[in-house]
Structure formats: structure tokens, C-alpha cells
């Protein structure tokens, strides 16, 4: 097998250049590449386009990169929970493109599956359809949507092996598997990095062919946005 291990987050993201297009896995703050984001704060790369379902919160996740003005454009389905984001958007410092969540997921999946365009019903009859080709199939209207791909995809997995095979945990899977397929360079940070051969081939969520660099992350905070409990 092919060894994909890099030393740490800095080595993994160090060549991400100004104005790069990134994909970042995660839903809310669940399953986000915390270590890669921290490393990007340090490299100071600027003008990033970030494709990510959400934009983090003011002091965590992509919100950290917004605060340092490293992000030029966000492509997301929902960007609430972030005051700095709102300020930059209203002042015109930040560009934002909102995409229905299922369309976003499918466009990323298409990027990783070599499908340049497909039809989806989401957004027909709404402003999302403006300027898009509309087709009827079996009496229902659909929009044509295009693939999304990235220069670098940053994903977070639970376990990974040195060949780049990944296993996610719980709902931290979310956008990570598709994004792993759609990056020219895919960087995976994992909580547990095991030697090749230790993961069951039948349980792998992302085959190593999609992963170019892998490292063991550290100090995961895994912040919770809505701490809801059952009172007994």
C-alpha cells in the first residue's frame, strides 16, 4: 500500500496557496477539521474560497478564519450563528453563495464521481433556479446543477490508516466522505492513526485512493453548539 502519512497539520496544509478553493467537512461544529483550521490560521493564507455546509461560530471552526479575514467567499447551505460573518457580509468584505443542502451534498458527490452535471428538483420555482436550465422529467420540473471540486479538501475522520483509508463516527460523517472524493489534494486528520491492515476492509467509509495526506490530529475540542439533555 501507499504511505500517505505527513508529520502534522502544518506539513499537511503548508502548501495551500492564496485564493485556493477549499472544501471543509463537518455539519455545524460536528466533524470539522479542527487541526487543519488551526494550522491555516498560522500559515496566514488569504483569499480562500471555503465550501462547507456551515461557517462555524464566532470563535470556533471556520469562524476563526473569518475573524482573521482569510476567507474571501463562503459556499454553504446555512451560515447562522456567526456575528462576525454577518458583519463582513453586510459590509461587502465577504462573498457568500447559498446552496440547498442536498444540492450542495450532491454537487460535491458529483465532483468526486466525475459527473459534471445532474438534475435535482430542489429550488425549482425559487430564486435558486434563476439562470439555471430547467427540464421536465415524468411531469416534474428539475434544475440542472454542476459539480463542485476543490484544490484542497480538508476532512476529519475518527480512524484512519497509513494508506489513507478512513472511518467516520456518528453524525460526524456528514459531508466528509463526499468532500474527500472531490479534492485535487485531500487532507485527512484523524483521531486515531493505525498501521495499514488494521482496519476491516468492509468497514471503510472512504477508500485511501481519495486521500493524499493523513495525520493524527491532537487536542480535539469537539465543541457542542446545542447542548440538549434529558432531565431525569
Amino acid at each position, binding site marked *: 500500500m501507499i504511505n500517505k502519512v505527513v508529520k502534522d497539520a502544518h506539513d499537511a496544509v503548508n502548501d495551500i496557496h492564496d485564493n485556493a478553493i477549499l472544501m471543509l467537512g463537518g*455539519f*455545524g*461544529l*460536528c*466533524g470539522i477539521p479542527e487541526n487543519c483550521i488551526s494550522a491555516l490560521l498560522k500559515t496566514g493564507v488569504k483569499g480562500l474560497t471555503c465550501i462547507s*455546509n456551515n461557517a462555524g461560530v464566532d470563535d470556533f471552526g471556520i469562524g476563526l478564519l473569518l475573524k482573521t479575514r482569510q476567507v474571501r467567499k463562503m459556499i*454553504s*447551505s*446555512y*451560515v*447562522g450563528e456567526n456575528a462576525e460573518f*454577518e458583519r463582513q*457580509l*453586510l459590509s461587502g468584505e465577504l462573498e457568500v453563495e*447559498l446552496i*440547498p*443542502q*442536498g*444540492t*450542495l*451534498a*450532491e454537487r*460535491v*458527490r458529483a465532483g468526486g464521481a466525475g459527473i459534471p452535471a445532474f438534475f*435535482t*428538483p*430542489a*429550488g*425549482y*420555482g*425559487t*430564486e*435558486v433556479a434563476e439562470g439555471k436550465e430547467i427540464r421536465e422529467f415524468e411531469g416534474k420540473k428539475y434544475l440542472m446543477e454542476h459539480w463542485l471540486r476543490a484544490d484542497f479538501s480538508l476532512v476529519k475522520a*475518527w480512524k484512519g490508516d497509513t494508506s489513507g483509508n478512513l472511518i467516520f*463516527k*456518528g*453524525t*460526524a*460523517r*456528514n*459531508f*466528509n*466522505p*463526499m468532500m474527500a472524493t472531490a479534492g485535487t489534494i485531500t487532507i485527512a486528520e484523524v483521531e486515531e492513526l493505525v498501521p495499514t491492515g488494521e482496519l476491516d476492509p468492509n468497514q471503510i*467509509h472512504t477508500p485511501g485512493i481519495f486521500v493524499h495526506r493523513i495525520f493524527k490530529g491532537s487536542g480535539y475540542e*469537539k*465543541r*457542542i*453548539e*446545542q*447542548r*440538549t*439533555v*434529558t432531565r*431525569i
Partner: protein
Amino acid sequence: MLDKVGIAKRIAKEVRDGMYINLGIGIPTLVANYIPGGMHVVLQSENGLLGIGPFPTEDQIDPDLINAGKQTITMMPGAALFSSAESFGMIRSGKVDLTILGAMEVSERGDIANWKIPGKMVKGMGGAMDLVASAKNIIVAMQHCSKDGASKLLKKCSLPLTGMNCVKKIVSDMAVLNVLPEGAFQLLERAPGISVEQIKNATEGKLIIEGEIPEMILN
């Protein structure tokens, strides 16, 4: 007038044994609490889970397990996890039997607006556009009127749409109504203490009232 819990209780009566259900944020989430015991349904969370369980106890909390409202949750026995692409695949292909979500406005043709208010910060549509475009059966939980008394059941939505011709049923704080394909709200039930006349006055869109309209039974 029903409160939020009342709306949730009434919607829970629409649930049938064996259904796969997606519950939106807000009132729809409350519906889970009133599904009759013994009924086997599976709740879908569009971030990648079938089989949402109750909120966790303090020692069960897992930051890697949240619902689409970003709340910590648990899983029911028999749950399954998957990616967002697979999740919306099952939504688009009509495998989810019932979608319950909130709305700011609904038109008599079943158009729904629930994601954007011009002049206000736009947070995004999340999964709402995918859900309304694909669900076989959509029930909307909403207030019949705005705070200043303006109807939210309209001839035509004034806000930017989330989807067209998709809402099948509305449970508001005042009434239960079907949305008919020909473009009308059909009054089915009144909230306790609410008269047909009050509902008429609160509904801007075409309202069809046939025969005696019963008061809803909540328990």
C-alpha cells in the same frame, strides 16, 4: 388558539405506524414527544441518521452525535448512519414518508416561504428546499396570522419561496386545513374555542368550508 405544544400534539395525530419522518427545527421537533406509544416510526435527521432517539443524559452526551438542529441526541436501536449525500438521496427519492416543517407563509397553491425575509440577514435555506421539493407528504406547522394580525395563509406568498406546490396539509394555531391541488385551503378542523368565522377572517387565500367543521381532538 393552540400553543406550540398544541400544534405539535395535533400533528402527532397524523403520524401512522411504520412511517419514516423528517422533523424540522422548532415546533416540528416537539412532535416526537407526542407520537402515541406502540407506534413504530423512524425519525430521519438529514445530517446523516435514521433512528433519532431522545436527548442524552449528561453522561451520554456525544459531540459526534447531533441532529440537524445541531442538538446533542442519542440513537434508537436499529439506527443507521450515513453521509449527507446518501441522506438527501433518500429524501429526493421519496423514501421519507412524512416531512413536518415550519413556515412563514403558505399560498393556496401549496407554495411555501420559510427561509428568507428581504432586508434581514439571510442565513440560508439549509435542507428545506430539498425537503419540500421531494417529500411525498408535507405538513406545515405555523401561526395562522402574524403578530399584527395579517394572514399567513395567502393567495400568493409575499416572501421568497422555498418551494412550489408542495404543502399538502397545514396545522396552524387556529385550524387544520388541506391544501387542494386546484388551489385552495380546505378547512378540516377548528382549534378549541375558535369559530369558523374567525378562521375565515384570518385566511387571505381561497378557503373552502363544507358542512360542519368539527373542533379538533387533541388527546
